[in-house]
Structures are given as structure tokens and as C-alpha cells.
């Protein structure tokens, strides 16, 4: 059970291997993102991860 969970969570690393650019190209008829689009994705990812951490901390105050 625990090993299955660990293996399942490991698969969440697959987007790194899949390559964000290739996923972008697949969604946009093979077009490569320009610098502005890449910056938007970068900022969006940072905000998403910071929010996830902040949400966890808000629901787990220090004892």
C-alpha cells in the first residue's frame, strides 16, 4: 500500500521529463513559446507552488 503510494507520487515527476516546451508545442500546433509566454508560465508556476506551500502552512500552525 505504502509502496504503491510512493510509486504513484513518483510519477508526478514525469512532467519534468516530459518537458514543458513539448507540452506547450503540442497544445499550440507546434509553435514554440516566445519569451513573454515563457515568462508568464514561469511566474504562474512560481505563484502556484508558493500558494500551495502557504496554504499548507496556514492550515498547520506551529504547535
Amino acid at each position: 500500500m505504502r509502496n504503491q503510494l510512493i510509486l504513484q507520487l513518483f510519477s508526478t515527476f514525469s512532467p519534468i521529463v516530459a518537458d514543458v516546451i513539448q507540452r506547450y508545442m503540442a497544445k499550440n500546433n507546434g509553435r514554440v513559446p516566445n519569451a513573454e509566454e515563457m515568462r508568464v508560465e514561469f511566474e504562474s508556476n512560481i505563484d502556484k507552488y508558493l500558494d500551495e506551500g502557504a496554504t499548507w502552512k496556514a492550515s498547520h500552525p506551529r504547535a
Partner: protein
Amino acid sequence: MKQFILVACLLLSSSCASQAPPNLTPGSEVRLWQANETAVALGTLQHVVIELNKVIVCPELPAIAPPCHPLVSDDNTRIVIDAVADGLTTLRRVPDGWRETGLAAIVRVENRLDAAGMGRIRVYVTAARAAITSITATP
């Protein structure tokens, strides 16, 4: 054992997949791509740890073992979140330093987690480090 096989697979596959596409303009576009890959590696590590923190395990012999507890403790989860948050904030400010920033966050996690926590998430820390080191410095 399966975990280490998966790490090996990740190392082999990521070394091919993390090279910047050749049609990106050298300079800012490539650096943003590299910084973004680093952000995804750190963010994914954080996400996995938060998910493991939600898993509650109970000992088979409660009389001689601690009571039910998260698979990754709150303290260890907080250490990862703080290290990742500092890394992401630095990445946003200085995308050019993506490799140093990403690896520094990983080292901070390794140095501050207790032995139990490190034992639980070592495979994911290894995967995150592999993901960052496999990003090529030049397109």
C-alpha cells in the same frame, strides 16, 4: 528497490529530455526555460511532501511505538516548504542563477530534515536533484 529502479530511469530519461529546444533564442528565452524547469522540480518536490504529510500511518504495536502520525511529519514538511519558497523567490528575482538556487534549496532540505524524514523522501530529493542537474546550462 522499485524506487531506485525508477530513479535510474528518471536519470537516464531526464538527461535527454532536459535540453533546451534548439529553436529558442539563446539568452533570455533559454534562461527562462531553465529557471522554469528548476521551479517545476522544486515545486514537484514540495507537492509530493505535502501529499505524504496527508497520509496517516498507525503502528502495528501501538503500545511500544508512537501513536498514529503523518508519513512525513509537520516539522519536516515545513522545512521543505520553507526551503522551496526561498528557492522560488530567489529564482523569480535572479532566474540566471537557476542551477545554484535550485541545488541550494535541495541541500538545505537534506541538511535540515531529521533522519526519519530524509528516509521517507530521499528518493524524491534525489529525483529533484537529478531533474535540476540534467538541465543543460547551454542550449
